[in-house]
């Protein structure tokens, strides 16, 4: 597809994937690719976060042998906590970068193309509004999260290898280090967290931002933030209650999201239980239904909206 001169500095990871041939998925595939071309921060931001985190970790490696030695006195759970701490920090930083990109991407998704009038070009091609909006929604809801998982997993592996080298060099036991750290379980928890919280639980949040980006004529950020804020204040004044605020906290707060995942963290067998509880919680499904409604409204709006 790409001829030799169309070099690939921009086409991140795309050469490995063969484009689908079926006519139904082709427009979707290419719509996603054009988002990756336009919003390069989708992969640059998590990569940059990984780079910064890695640099900090490299400096911290100096004190690693001492930490390992000092830990002999602690019990296994505490040992794991101490060793895993830098890994958690790095994974957290990458996820945070991806989350921030998700927010700003969603706010611009259907606004930017109207502002620069390129919507006229996109609409001059046989791609439906539904395909376009779904492709755009898939960026924060699926692609960014999987991408940040892949980047985090790669970064954590490199960290593990570097640490092992340092531990080995200082005469420690690599096997013990790996055993106490249990990276595989950490990655599993990370993936679980990304899928449950960042994909499923936050889906209505991204969908709301995409809806606002399809609707707003200017300052989508204000339109996304001020109305919920206004409703909360109104409720407080009129009814002296704060159900709406509680609702927002319930949705945006992570703790409620996965039924206090932290509690289940050290115990492997607890995980399927937590997952089952999460998947059967009405909060998840109402959220997904609301997300679907927002996305459907965004599709409708893209049909009607003209360049601004």
């Amino acid at each position, binding site marked *: *597809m*790409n*001829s030799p*001169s*169309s*070099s690939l500095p*921009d086409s991140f990871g795309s050469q490995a994937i063969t*484009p689908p041939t079926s*006519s139904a998925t*082709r*427009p979707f*595939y*290419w*719509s996603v*690719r*054009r988002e990756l*071309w*336009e919003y390069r921060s989708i992969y640059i931001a998590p990569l940059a976060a990984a780079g910064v985190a890695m640099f900090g970790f490299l400096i911290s490696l100096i004190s690693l042998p001492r930490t390992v030695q000092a830990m002999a006195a602690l019990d296994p759970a505490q040992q794991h906590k101490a060793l895993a701490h830098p890994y958690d920090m790095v994974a957290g930083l990458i996820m945070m970068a991806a989350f921030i990109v998700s927010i700003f991407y969603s706010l611009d998704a259907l606004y930017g*193309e109207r502002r*620069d*009038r*390129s919507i*006229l*070009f996109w*609409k*001059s*091609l*046989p*791609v*439906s*509004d539904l*395909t376009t909006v779904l492709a755009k929604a898939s960026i924060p809801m699926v692609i960014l999260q999987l991408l940040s998982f892949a980047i985090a997993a790669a970064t954590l592996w490199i960290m593990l290898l570097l640490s092992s080298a340092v531990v080995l060099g200082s005469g420690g036991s690599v096997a013990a280090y790996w055993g106490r750290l249990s990276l595989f379980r950490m990655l599993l928890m990370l993936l679980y967290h990304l899928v449950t919280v960042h994909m499923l639980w936050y889906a209505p949040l991204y969908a709301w931002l995409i809806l606002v980006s399809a609707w707003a004529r200017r300052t989508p950020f204000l339109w996304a933030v001020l109305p919920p804020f206004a409703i909360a204040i109104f409720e407080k004044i009129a009814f002296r209650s704060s159900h709406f605020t509680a609702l927002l906290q319930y949705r945006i707060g992570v703790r409620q999201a996965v039924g206090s995942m932290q509690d289940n963290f050290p115990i492997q067998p607890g995980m399927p239980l937590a997952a089952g509880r999460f998947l059967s919680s009405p909060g998840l499904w109402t959220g997904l239904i609301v997300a679907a409604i927002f996305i459907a409204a965004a599709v409708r709006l893209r049909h*009607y909206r*003209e360049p601004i």
Partner: protein
Amino acid sequence: MTGQAMPVIEARGLRKAFGATMALDGVDLRVEEGHILGIIGPNGAGKTTALNAILGLTSYQGQLNVLGRDPWTQRDQLMRDVCFIADVAVLPRWMRVWQALDYVAGVHPRFDRARAEGFLAKTDIRRASRIRELSKGMVTQLHLALVMAIDARLLVLDEPTLGLDILYRKQFYDSLLNDYFDRSRTIVVTTHQVEDVQHVLTDLMFINRGRIVLNCSMEEFESRYLEVTVRPEQVTAARALKPMHERQVLGRSILLFDRDSNQKIDRQQVAALGEVRTPSIADLFVAVMGGSFGTAQGAAQ
């Protein structure tokens, strides 16, 4: 689908209001296959609104059928057979040339990539350039290369050559006629640069305030309108023939006659008054839209 039975565009009573302004006020339109229709009108006349309705970019009242489809509800299917160039700002500025080629090749089943590359090879456009780095003329060349490589049945051009120098403009219409247009395709174009399209069009339409003021084929146009540079001593006699418009150029009167509203006029008779020729579209436009607007509208209907 040859012959002229099947209209490419058919509109009846097309209306569109923006608040109190009627952008389209009951437009009836029929464009047949193999025609090149020029829609000419002052700013705000409703040209772009009409094109947007045809392309499914705006809602409307009334009946509209493009290639057998309702553009508003079936835009994505329609766009397999319809191409569109609006004024040059439309190609996304962040995109690189190869990305535009990849994308259109990816989503458009009728795009012939080799053909587009062939057109681009004749230009100075580099494939690694971003669109924002290209000159205005180059962006139009790129868009035209993309569009001409699509085997579409209807091409809609909305001010395609706005802001381009005369060389690019000439080249634009030359490639369109030589490398693209044939009797199975149809082109609708709006432009203010009417002198560029006078010899390109097969049909002409004037539109003002959302209404069609004039609608004729170029053959009709040539037989119907006469422009006479009248000799000074003949001016009174010429005015007696009720010209639709009169203007003064370098001290000489140039009179424009509409033979439809004045059956008595024939070429020999007018030739006695001075030098006769077919008017330019621009001069007819001024005559129709200008001072004697009321009479001209009466004459056109």
